[in-house]
C-alpha cells in the first residue's frame, strides 16, 4: 500500500505566492524520506497535508487511498499518519509522562488494557520507560521530543511525520532522537522527516528538496551527495564534513559513498 499525491497540490494562504506549487510526490511504505528545504520553501506546509491538517487548493492528497478533502476521512487518516512538531513544549498535553503518551490512543477510543500495552511499548522504544510516572515538566527538550514520538507510536500508525523535530534540541538530544528514528525505520515504519540539516539525512532512503514551493530535486540520499547540487542556493546547511567530502571529490580523490567520519577516515588512509 502506498501514499500517493497525484496531480499538483498548490496551496495558497492568501499571499502573493502560493506556498506550494505543482507538487507531486509519492511516499512508499517502509521508506524513510527526508524533506529538505530552507524556511519558506513550503516543507512545513507540505508536511501538514500529509495528515489532513491542511487541504490542497488544487490537486489531491491521498493517504492510503483516502482523500484528505473528505472530512469523513480525517479521523482514519490521522490514525494512519502521526505527526511530531518542532516545539517540544507545545505538543505535550499530559501532566505525567505515561498519561501524555496515552492521549492519542484515548482519542482513538482504544480499550484501556490495550492502551496500557501500547503506552508501555511506545515508551520503551523511546527510551522513557523508567520516567513513565514523572511529571512532564521535568523532562529535558530532547526527552519531550522523544515523548512526542512515543505518543505518536502509541497511536499505532504505520507512518510517522516529523516537522523539524531537532530544531530546538541540543546536540545530545538530537543524537538520541535520531537513534530512536533509526530503530523505528529498521522495524519497518514509514518515516517522513522535515529538516534543513543535511547531516541528519544520512540514514534516510530518499530525499526530496523543496525550494520556493516547488520540488527542486528528488532521489536517493546516496545520489544527493554525488550530484553537484546548488545547496547554498536552496538555503540548505552544508556541514563542514560534507564540504570537505565534496571538495575531495571535485579533485577526483577517493571518497566514500556517504560522508561520515568513519568512512572518511578509512578513505583517507588508503
Amino acid at each position: 500500500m502506498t501514499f500517493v499525491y497525484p496531480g499538483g497540490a498548490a496551496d495558497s494562504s492568501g499571499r502573493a505566492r502560493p506556498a506550494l506549487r505543482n507538487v507531486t510526490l509519492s511516499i512508499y511504505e517502509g521508506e524513510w524520506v527526508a524533506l529538505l528545504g530552507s524556511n519558506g520553501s513550503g516543507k512545513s506546509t507540505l508536511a501538514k497535508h500529509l495528515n489532513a491538517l491542511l487541504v490542497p487548493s488544487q490537486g489531491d492528497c491521498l493517504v492510503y487511498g483516502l482523500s484528505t478533502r473528505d472530512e469523513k476521512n480525517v479521523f482514519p487518516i490521522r490514525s494512519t499518519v502521526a505527526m511530531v512538531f518542532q516545539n517540544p513544549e507545545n505538543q505535550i498535553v499530559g501532566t505525567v509522562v505515561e498519561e501524555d503518551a496515552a492521549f492519542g490512543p484515548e482519542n482513538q477510543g482504544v480499550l484501556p488494557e490495550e492502551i496500557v500495552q501500547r503506552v508501555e511499548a511506545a515508551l520503551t522504544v523511546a527510551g522513557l520507560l523508567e520516567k513513565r510516572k514523572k511529571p512532564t515538566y521535568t523532562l529535558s527538550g530532547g526527552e519531550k521530543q522523544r515523548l512526542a514520538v512515543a505518543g505518536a507510536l502509541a497511536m499505532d500508525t504505520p507512518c510517522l511525520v516529523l516537522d523539524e523535530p531537532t530544531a530546538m534540541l541540543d546536540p545530545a538530544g538530537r543524537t538520541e532522537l535520531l537513534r530512536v528514528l533509526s530503530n523505528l525505520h529498521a522495524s519497518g515504519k514509514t518515516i517522513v522527516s522535515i529538516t534543513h540539516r543535511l547531516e541528519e539525512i544520512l540514514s534516510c532512503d530518499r530525499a526530496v528538496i523543496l525550494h520556493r514551493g516547488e520540488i527542486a530535486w528528488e532521489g536517493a540520499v546516496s545520489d544527493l551527495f554525488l550530484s553537484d547540487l546548488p545547496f547554498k542556493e536552496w538555503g540548505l546547511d552544508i556541514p563542514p564534513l560534507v564540504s570537505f567530502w565534496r571538495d575531495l571529490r571535485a579533485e577526483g580523490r577517493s571518497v566514500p559513498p556517504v560522508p561520515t567520519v568513519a568512512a572518511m577516515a578509512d578513505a583517507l588512509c588508503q
Partner: protein
Amino acid sequence: MSITVSGLGHTYHPGTPLETRALRDISFEFPAGTWFSVVGHTGSGKSTLAQHLNGILLPMEGKIFIDGLEVKEKSPSLREIRRKVGLVFQYPEQQLFAETVSDELAFAPRNWGVPEEDIPGRVSAAAAQVGLDEGCLGRSPFHLSGGEKRKAAIASVLSSRPDYLVLDEPTAGLDSFSRKELTRLLSGLRNEGMGILLVTHDLDIALQMSDRILVLDGGRRIVCDTPAAVLDHLRTHPVPGLQLPEIAALSAALRERGKNVPLTWNWKEIKSALFGSQK
C-alpha cells in the same frame, strides 16, 4: 578592563529536597576585547554562570569583579554592572513587548537614565550594529520576520552600550546563513573592543571563534584554555554530552592511524597536511 571570577559557587534551593549545586569553584579571567566561550551540556551550569555576570544571580561563594566593581547583594554599583554587562538570553525574541521596534531599542537606555535627546541616536546606532533596516524601526516588533526579531532583541541590549556582551545560545534555531551573519557581527563587536562571552553547547562555533574556552561539566571547571589546547584535552578526556565536531573527530581518527595531520576543526588544514597545498 576585565571580568574576574574567582571561586564562584552557587546552589539552587539550599536546604530543601530540591537542592542542586549548580556551580562549584569556578575561576577565570575574561578581558574586554576578547571572545570567551563557556561550553557544556544542558545542566552543566553555564546558564547559571552567565546570569551571575550581570548580577541577576548573586554569588553564594567566591567573588566576581566587573572592571573592579564587585557583584554583591545591595551593592550600589549593581545597576552600573547591569548596564556594563549586556545579557542576551536564549530565544531573545521572546522578550519583545513594545509598540514599535524603536521603543523596544529605547527601553534599556531609558531605564539607565540616558537623556531623552540622546535616545534616537542610541536606537539608530544599535539597529545599524545588528544590520536592522531603518525602515523596521517604526514597525511593531511582532511583525518582523524570525531573523529580524532576533536582531531586534540583540539590538535592544546593545543600545545600552555595554562593555561586555554575554549571549546564551544566540544561534539556537537559526539557519546557517543567519548563524554566520550573527557570528560575524559578534566578531566585529569584539574587534571594536567589546568583550564577547558566548555560552553554548556548540563546540564548533566555540572552537572557531574563541580566544579562550571554559568547559563545564556538572558545575565544575574541566579545562580553561585556548581552543587548540581545549580540543586536545577533550580528545583524551571526553566530557559527557559534548561531542567533538566532525572535522575534529576526523582529524583525531586520522592521527590515531598515524597520519601527520594537526588536531583541528578546519578541514582545509587536514587537506593541506595530507596533500600539501596543490592548487
